[in-house]
């Protein structure tokens, strides 16, 4: 039997067009042996949830630099749940003000990473979250 690979969807919801961060993370996760499905820019929450469903991912990584995280994150969590994928761990990378973090965590976001976060931390925390 082949070993179970960790499958991660890396998505960029919303309208900002900077995907360098998402690509750096995608590449780092690849180098950590994960299978990363990269969806590209300007995804709606519906598109992200649909891709997560079709790809049967363990993790969704969202890159949000637009400031719209308090609208996008809960919507995506809600759609994942509606599809029966409440077990999917959702991580966010981007520009997230400190005061929003507790509420995002409360909603069920598994990890939040700002500028300067190390990819090793992200990889380790993804692995921990999955083995929990």
């Amino acid at each position, binding site marked *: *039997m082949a070993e179970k690979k960790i499958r991660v969807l890396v998505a960029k919801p919303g309208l900002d067009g900077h995907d360098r961060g998402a690509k750096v993370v995608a590449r780092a996760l690849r180098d950590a042996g994960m299978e990363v499905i990269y969806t590209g820019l300007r995804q709606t929450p519906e598109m992200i949830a649909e891709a997560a469903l079709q790809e049967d991912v363990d993790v969704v990584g969202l890159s949000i630099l637009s400031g719209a995280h308090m609208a996008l994150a809960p919507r995506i969590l809600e759609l994942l749940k509606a599809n029966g994928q409440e077990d999917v761990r959702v991580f966010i990378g981007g520009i997230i003000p400190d005061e929003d973090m507790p509420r995002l965590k409360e909603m069920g976001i598994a990890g939040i990473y700002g500028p300067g976060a190390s990819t090793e931390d992200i990889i380790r925390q993804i692995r921990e979250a999955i083995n929990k």
Partner: protein
Amino acid sequence: MRNTSLTQSVLEGNRLALSRLLTQVENESSDGRAALAELFPHTGRAHLIGVTGAPGTGKSSLVNQLTLYYRKQQDKRVAIIAVDPSSPFTGGAVLGDRVRMRDLSGDNGVFIRSMASRGSVGGLAQTTAALVQVFDAAGYEIIIIETVGAGQGEVEIARLAHTTLVVEAPGLGDDIQAIKAGILEIADVLVINKADRPGVENTERALRSTLELAHPTKRVFRHHGQAMSIDAPEPDSKIWIPPIHKTIATDGTGIAELADSIARHAAHIRQNGDWAVRDRARLGSELEAVLQSELMKRFFDRVQKEKYEAVMEQVIQRNLSPYEAVNQLLNGNPNQEK
């Protein structure tokens, strides 16, 4: 979810169940195998279309447009399996074909699944054929399999698909590239994508002269590791000569004509018996592959690890050739054992 009910849900059209089953099958879990066995009688209905070609020729964009066409014009349910390479060093992969398929989002008649090649060469993953069976059983009428960006030898897709599209783009090579063996030989339909780019006439001329030099009248399969050729069914049926289509996948130019050729090819091989020949060959090589891996597994379950290591050491010391070593492992060494 118990597995029998998982299979049942897949047959009833539950997308989450389908997705989970695909994962189990891809991971070759025992549950996945059991489910495949249950689903197998429901397979054999879909038209399998392979799409291959060099990286950057626009395969994913073309698949996107073709799928839109099948949805809008023919209302057929379409499954897409998009294979991208795994890293040979870490086993990780970035699967990026969905980026070009965003138009297909929000349509329940389409299911896109990305697959990492997981160490397989030949342009597909080990379990791609099994995933095809799952989609087939789930009632998808068209299954498009997009290979990894292929070079010259990634011809595995021709064994899997009923109709193979080879996608070229202007400016990728001269006519010597076009007469080499391999990828061009497996084309049932040739596509020159990015036909708005300069050089398209040259590409077309090169491909056309290749087709005139020789169109295949034999079909080659690997059988017990040997290349075997089967005469394509003849003589009264006309030989299929791969048509050449020029497309611009970013705006849909030429897609309707391409879809028409694909349909004509399917009708052609159904009529001349090649459809059945291909099904046979595909299932035959699948059976062989499974048999091979099961025999290996059975062997490793039984052989003593120390004995295996000892024989291996002898090979490393150049005392035994690999052939002698295998002979000894399978039949025992008469001098030592009795």
